[in-house]
């Protein structure tokens, strides 16, 4: 690599890193507890746990589940009924002032076997809710998300340019060599190069999928509008639905349409995910790969018959598949720990990079090239 090319890559590496470092540090620090959010939730008591019962225990009907939630918040409208992947013992009933409410939502966790209300989990509340809000949007809504997405892009530029620079900096060193006998700066330069290069795949994948996730709101809204338009074409009669038919029948018919899938959530008529006349029943796959992919089944709320089940478009599939690769939640507790360790290593890479930049300045601090020459001599 010619000196000019190296200088150009160095410039790119320096500025892409400097601009984004503070924000990426915030992302790494807030991401660390989020890796363990299930465990922390259980420890704080915010995670609802259903009492153990035999797997073949009889199950409550959805009408019973909804009635149990209605008993807690009689003035609210039921919007969604959902289940977490891997736990079919609990139904979460989400309710709002109206079917279109976006704030002041309440949730009731109902035992799927007994039909009894277990708890009222706070939606996005508490310490972990705040940590999540910082990580995702810096408390700044969509603008915060898109801004962090741009920081993610700079991170990718920094990773690629850093990888290119690995060659000129490591030419005379063995892999893993850290010149500890030399100045603190040289020692940290070697560590920065080592830690950066061994974590490059992970950092690229987590950075890229994180960036994709910042567009989630826009992508989901686009899909939802697209879907709602299709649904409206099926709707007939007056715009409001006085008396929906049986929820359990609608659910049973949706399950019959996708017998190999599990339920993710049911959107009630009038919500953003349903239509005036339809339940939106969203199914998910059973494997690690497919459990994040949702397949909508649209069910006529009056007759309980399936109207259609359109394939989700490619951009939704991309978004939903990029999520596990960002969260690192598909390989059990060992994977969570590895995610945490790699997160900490990334913090060290950024911290050492910042130190290398700071220590280069100042009159009495020698820069690397002079030192390197002296060492070779």
């Amino acid at each position: 690599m010619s000196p000019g090319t190296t200088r150009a890559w160095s410039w790119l590496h320096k500025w892409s890193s400097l601009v984004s470092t503070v924000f990426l540090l915030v992302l790494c620090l807030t991401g660390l507890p989020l890796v363990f959010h299930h465990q922390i939730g259980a420890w704080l008591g915010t995670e609802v746990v259903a009492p153990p019962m035999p797997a073949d225990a009889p199950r409550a009907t959805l009408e019973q589940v909804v009635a149990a939630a209605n008993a807690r918040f009689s003035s609210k409208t039921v919007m969604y009924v959902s289940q977490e992947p891997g736990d079919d013992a609990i139904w979460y009933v989400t309710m709002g002032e109206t079917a279109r409410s976006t704030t002041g939502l309440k949730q009731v966790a109902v035992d799927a076997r007994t039909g009894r209300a277990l708890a009222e989990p706070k939606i996005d509340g508490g310490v972990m809710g705040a940590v999540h809000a910082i990580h995702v949007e810096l408390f700044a809504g969509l603008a915060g998300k898109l801004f962090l997405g741009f920081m993610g892009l700079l991170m990718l530029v920094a990773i690629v340019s850093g990888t290119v620079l690995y060659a000129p900096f490591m030419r005379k060193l063995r892999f893993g060599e850290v010149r500890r006998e030399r100045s603190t700066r040289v020692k940290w330069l070697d560590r920065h190069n080592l830690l950066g290069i061994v974590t490059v795949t992970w950092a690229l994948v987590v950075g890229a999928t994180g960036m994709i996730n910042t567009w989630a709101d826009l992508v989901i809204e686009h899909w939802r509008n697209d879907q709602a338009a299709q649904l409206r074409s099926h709707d007939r009669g007056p715009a409001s639905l006085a008396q929906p038919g049986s929820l359990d029948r609608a659910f049973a018919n949706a399950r019959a349409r996708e017998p190999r899938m599990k339920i993710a959530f049911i959107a009630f008529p009038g919500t953003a995910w349903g239509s005036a006349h339809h339940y939106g029943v969203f199914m998910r796959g059973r494997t690690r790969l497919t459990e994040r992919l949702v397949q909508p089944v649209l069910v006529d709320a009056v007759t309980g018959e399936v109207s259609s089940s359109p394939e989700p478009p490619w951009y939704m599939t991309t978004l939903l598949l990029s999520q596990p690769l960002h969260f690192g939640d598909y390989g059990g507790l060992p994977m969570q720990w590895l995610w945490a360790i790699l997160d900490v290593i990334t913090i060290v890479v950024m911290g050492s990079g910042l130190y290398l930049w700071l220590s280069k300045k100042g009159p009495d601090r020698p820069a690397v090239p002079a030192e390197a020459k002296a060492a070779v001599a």
Partner: protein
Amino acid sequence: MKASPLWSLWAWPVVIAILAGAGLVGGLAGDGRWDWMTWVGLGVPCVASVWFGLRGRRRRARARRPRA
């Protein structure tokens, strides 16, 4: 025989990058042995970071190069 400079520079980084990539994708495929693929694939970068980062690798014994 002396290894080419390109090979000695990039062999380990490339091997580790491929292992990590296989680990990330493998875990999505399923449970059981696929999980092990993830743990090994992502464990190697972690172990290499801690091991070499803390201890550092010794300098290769070799003739000093003349001043460039």
